[in-house]
């Protein structure tokens, strides 16, 4: 605890005008926004074929929710300028952390060894790759599909 005896608002803190009604409005807004995120999961969401639209939408909704919590529940809206000193450098550090991971981790699929590629997971939809043993071309066997390739063998 501080030397002030009681810690609350010696200056620059939030004001009492943050009424309970405001918290209720923020709560309702957060519930609506959560429902909007969840809407992307439902069959009524029209962009299931383009997942990036849904992802962008959800991130926008999440950022809005986060802002509401930070500004009103954490009272940052009513704090003095010190809030920038503590939050902006941390936000930048977070961004740099993320960016630093991209070349080695995020783009790891760009420079895989053949051995690593052989053992890595494949998407389920990927058809089994036929391997040539008895003449013919890859294209021909690909066109025939896995069952046909097996019969030929």
């Amino acid at each position: 605890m501080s030397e002030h005896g009681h810690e609350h608002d010696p200056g620059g803190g939030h004001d009492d005008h943050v009424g309970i009604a405001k918290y209720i409005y923020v709560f309702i807004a957060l519930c609506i926004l959560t429902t909007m995120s969840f809407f992307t999961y439902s069959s009524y969401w029209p962009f299931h074929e383009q997942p990036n639209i849904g992802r962008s939408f959800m991130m926008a909704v999440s950022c809005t929710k986060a802002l509401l919590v930070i500004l009103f529940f954490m009272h940052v809206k009513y704090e003095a300028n010190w809030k920038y000193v503590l939050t902006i450098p941390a936000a930048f550090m977070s961004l740099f952390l993320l960016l630093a991971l991209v070349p080695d981790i995020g783009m790891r699929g760009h420079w895989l060894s053949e051995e690593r590629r052989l053992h890595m997971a494949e998407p389920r939809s990927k058809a089994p790759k036929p391997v040539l043993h008895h003449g013919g071309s890859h294209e021909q066997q690909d066109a025939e599909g896995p069952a046909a390739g097996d019969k030929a063998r």
Partner: protein
Amino acid sequence: MMAEPPTHARAHSAAEHAGHDHGGAAVALEYHPGLPIPNGKLIVWLFLSTEIMFFAGLIGTYIVLRFGASTWPVPHEVHLSEPIGAFNTFVLICSSVTVVLSLEAAKAGKTASAKGWLLATLVLGGVFLGVKAYEYNAKFSHGIYPWRPHSRIYEKADLNYAAAVRTRLESLKSQLDGEATAIKERLAKTPPAIEKDPAAVELFEKQELVDNLVIYEKDVEIKAATDPNAAGARAALDEMASLIMFHNEIETQATDPDAARARAALAKLVDHGGDSNGAQHEGLNDEHEWLKLPVVIPGGNMWASTYFLLTGFHALHVLLGLIVFVIMIPMTLGVMAAGLVENIGLYWHFVDLVWIFLFPLLYLF
């Protein structure tokens, strides 16, 4: 009348002139904090700024790993339930409101009300952790762990996978044989006939299922071992993986008559006339949980590592908050304790904030 100088100016001026203040009255220096907030609140905010970097590192790693991966499991493959995740989001949002209402009550000197809202926050946090425990249990019961030997996840249906299925079947077979011997010994002493004993009937059904699986797996493994790269062999391995944990319909690849018969018997167990989306289909592992056969979930190991790391650290933060609530509830939460309620409230909102990002990233992406 001149305006009174600010406090810090007074202190500064006093310190500056203290050296040549001969014989004057002693000046009382006044402490003033560097930032216009209490020390406790400053420390909480400094802690939260490190927490921002901590979770940003974890979430950033998840995003980079997920989008750099060749494949990633869909939520249903790893037994994630979106409605449960949405429910937990709602619970945390409610708890954020209750903790802020507790602060308002404490500031207004309404001790009982502040205590009540804090208790409500504690209950909601407990509900969140309870739901999380239920979710973890669903993963564990399906062999989804972030580490071996508990994890039964295989990245692709290959010869290694077939060998793992065989090992599990051998272990099941010897376990069931042991149980069968015990039942036979028991029934020899106290008849009824073996076919009327419910435990014996259940055991025989299990043995029949395992025998069919052994015949079928052997056929698949021989095919895969003969030429692991052959399209037919790979399709047979995929088919076996799909029979154990359903993902899509695959035409039967069994050519050996015994294996074809065994495969037909196994397929009958999991075929409930599901629709084309596979909504009603389940695999053998779902139908018979005691089987605990290895499963193929492409990208499942990385998914499990990131999921348990992110949700585990978040759950630990929730737990820490709940411990602080338990300590605070017996205290008198009046005006004097408002700062304390505000500080724990800031931490709790941050925990809510992290979940706001985790929910769409883990359940809906």
